[in-house]
């Protein structure tokens, strides 16, 4: 009996070894060519969204919002590649408005997509799109750093607190000195926030130059300036296009439409 049992165990071990040899040991990673991914991508079906009756209208609006033209998509891919995928396509929202001339990018840290691209009807050049998207991505990257977020939160809290203090002091006739203090605090915090916004924009430009290169950034900024009616005027707390061109390009050139941003030297 024992001899039969030993014999059986030996046979089992032999069989295990033969089966292990048949399948072989674990293989090294086997990377596939790019064509393999292309084959998979062509067969990826669009994600079917869950249709709930009461949010159907909102979904239709969101579907319109999610449409991104091919040139914007291509520009985003270029920027994502250069910036080592700082942001994903899911963060981009595209809107085209008839009444505007100057393209813009809005950055949001709230729970909605981070980069809102607002473009006019007339098409933009590739370099302008690249710079616009890269500017948005760079500003987003800087703004979401922990230090920047903490300072922003602190300043916003001070501004809100001082507004509340001023309101309550006026309503309940507290100390006379409260209202001026509150006004000063609120003004200072708003002033600092504007200064930080400008500082972020200038830092972001440096990041854009690092990603895209100075020449391409300059071309893009000049192309954006061509679309702007007021390149000397910046948005609240942001440097103007002309200032950005001066800082980035360190050269001064005339714009295409004849308005001179520069002086010939």
């Amino acid at each position, binding site marked *: 009996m024992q001899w039969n049992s030993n014999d059986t165990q030996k046979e089992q071990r032999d069989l295990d070894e033969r089966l292990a040899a048949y399948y072989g040991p674990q293989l090294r990673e086997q990377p596939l060519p790019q064509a393999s991914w292309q084959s998979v991508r062509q067969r990826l079906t669009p*994600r079917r969204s*869950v249709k709930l009756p009461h949010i159907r209208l909102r979904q239709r609006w969101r579907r319109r919002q999610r449409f991104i033209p091919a040139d914007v998509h291509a520009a985003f891919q270029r920027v994502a590649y250069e910036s080592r995928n700082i942001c994903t396509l*899911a963060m981009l929202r595209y809107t085209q408005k008839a009444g505007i001339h100057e393209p813009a990018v809005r950055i949001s840290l709230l729970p909605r997509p981070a980069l809102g691209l607002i473009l006019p009807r007339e098409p933009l050049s590739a370099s302008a799109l690249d710079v616009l998207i890269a500017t948005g991505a760079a500003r987003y990257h800087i703004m979401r750093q922990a230090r920047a*977020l903490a300072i922003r939160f602190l300043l916003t809290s001070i501004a809100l607190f001082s507004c509340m203090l001023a309101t309550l002091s006026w309503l309940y006739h507290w100390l006379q000195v409260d209202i001026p203090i509150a006004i000063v605090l609120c003004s200072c915090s708003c002033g600092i926030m504007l200064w930080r916004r400008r500082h972020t924009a200038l830092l972001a430009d440096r990041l854009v130059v690092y990603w895209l290169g100075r020449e391409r950034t300059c071309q893009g900024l000049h192309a954006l300036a061509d679309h702007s009616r007021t390149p000397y005027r910046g948005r609240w707390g942001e440097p103007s296009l002309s200032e950005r061109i001066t800082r980035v390009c360190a050269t001064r050139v005339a714009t295409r439409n004849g308005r001179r941003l520069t002086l010939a030297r």
Partner: protein
Amino acid sequence: MTLVNGNLLALFLCSILQKGGVDLANGEADLIACAIRGDQEAFRQLWEAHHAVAMATALRLCHHRALAEEITQGAFLLAWRGLPRFQSSYPFRPWLLRILYRHALDVMEKQRVHLQPVSLDEIMEAEAGFASSMHCTHDDLQELIAQREELRHALARLSPDQRRVISLRYGADLTELDIAQILDWPLGTVKSRLNRARERLRVLLNDTKGEGL
């Protein structure tokens, strides 16, 4: 209802991950959340991270490179479709490999891989791809081919369920518990089928040896 909850949870998760400055742009959880929403670029990054391991796993099971590639692609397509049901608290690769194992076994049965002789080129390629390299002489290679053919004939005479269990046990080094989870069988069923498969293989190989003598 489960699908609805899963989709809403994924949307919520994606929005949570994108707010508040948490840097998860390259994190797998972020990629999965975005892929659930239909972002093919995010899914491409998952492909880049995991396809090589999936291909190695499939190749070890089926020994045919073209078939292994087909299995890998199929597994990723199934993963794309099944992503809304994926629980993001778990790691992605084991889930993907579970899909791959089931898909590989189905494809191999459908294409009757066990009836196709293994080619010399594929054996040489597999030898080169092994983690520990084995240097075979010509005689060793002939012997290896003969043994493989003998075992392949024996595996072809098992039932499909017995072949599945053997493939996962020896081709993927899975435990009986893992096999039970992947195939969705009771543990006792896996053990009994594995034992019967081994017994049957022993008998078949002994018969073959006897005929050879």
